[in-house]
């Protein structure tokens, strides 16, 4: 930058001067970058919008009467309104609902934590009283604890009991194991 500049020993202040070429390339480059950068900024923000949207916290959906829930896990289906961009649709979800030893009702997601297949209570004749995944034989306890293959316990639906009915929200990581 200052390589070809003449040293001036008399003055203590050394001012780096800018050549005409440098000035022009900076101003030209600057305005060019501005003219492209500003539109690009809007476009990129537009494109990454899904990353910055807050996760929609699922409302509680009425699923089943409390009296139907037993110690043995049972599969119940329920519908939840899914807003996918401009596409709104009632999607069917499944939950395995049961009572633990102290009578608390809890609900597990049937989505295997290995690769996302669907698990089933007593899904295999070889393993009784366990959740079994038919894809790669992953197994889970009644609480959803992963016994083999899967790296994590089954997800859990937050449960709310109101007026004798079980209401479920959207899945959270398992809090029981």
């Amino acid at each position, binding site marked *: 930058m200052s390589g070809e500049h003449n040293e001036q020993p008399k003055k203590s202040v050394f001012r780096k001067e800018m050549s005409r070429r440098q000035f022009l390339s900076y101003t030209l480059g600057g305005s060019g970058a501005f003219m*492209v950068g500003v*539109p690009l900024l*809007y*476009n*990129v923000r*537009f*494109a990454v*919008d899904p990353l910055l949207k807050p996760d929609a916290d699922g409302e509680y959906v009425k699923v089943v009467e409390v009296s139907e829930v037993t110690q043995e896990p049972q599969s119940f289906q329920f519908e939840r309104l899914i807003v996918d*961009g*401009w596409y709104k649709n009632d999607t069917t979800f499944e939950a395995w609902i049961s009572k633990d030893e102290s009578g608390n009702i809890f609900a597990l997601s049937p989505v295997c934590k290995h690769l996302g297949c669907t698990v089933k209570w007593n899904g295999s004749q070889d393993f009784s009283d366990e959740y079994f995944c038919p894809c790669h034989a992953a197994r889970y306890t009644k609480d959803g604890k992963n016994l083999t293959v899967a790296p994590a316990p089954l997800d859990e639906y937050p449960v709310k009991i109101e007026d004798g009915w079980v209401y479920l929200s959207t899945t959270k990581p398992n809090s029981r194991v």
Partner: protein
Amino acid sequence: MLKKMYNWIDERLDITPMWRDVADHEVPEHVNPAHHFSAFVYCFGGLTFFITILQILSGMFLTMYYVPDITNAYKSVDFLQHEVAFGVIVRGMHHWGASLVIVMMFLHTLRVFFTGSYKAPREMNWVVGMLIFMVMLGLGFTGYLLPWDNKAYFATKVGIQIAASVPLLGPYIETFLQGGSITGAQTLTRFFALHVFFLPGALFALLAGHFIMIRKQGISGPL
């Protein structure tokens, strides 16, 4: 850092002459607004290109949300405009830019016409420029249908009927543009394909020819 990276590549590939050749060219005094302010009319071609770049940019981003299908096209446009951040600006850029490209191109054409720049040896560049004009109008026509609202639908019906009035070939043009016997689902996908693949492809080829010719022949002399 950037300089080092540039030098590292330059040592291996000798890229400096490439961009030098593109960037360094003579700008005659009579086209430089710094010398004669009225020379700003020589900027219209470059401005057309700049807006074209913005059209390509905003168009690419719009396709992240847009769906060319009669049940979802309007909904997806409504969604991207009202629900997605800066959707109004990105679609606005594309909407207003589309008109601005035509305006700028028209002004550029007037400048070329009144300075007589189309004369020998630059006749071929005039012809290529006219082809660019037609491709741009085609882009405007096909893009107009895509939001699939009433304005889009009826503008396209009218446009297709104008095309259908061509003697002899008219009915064939109509069926080809509609992709069937009515303006409907197949028209929309067809216009989308034309708008984002075929016409831009033609445009890039023509623009390349336009620019190569002007570099080869230089800007026409002063009046």
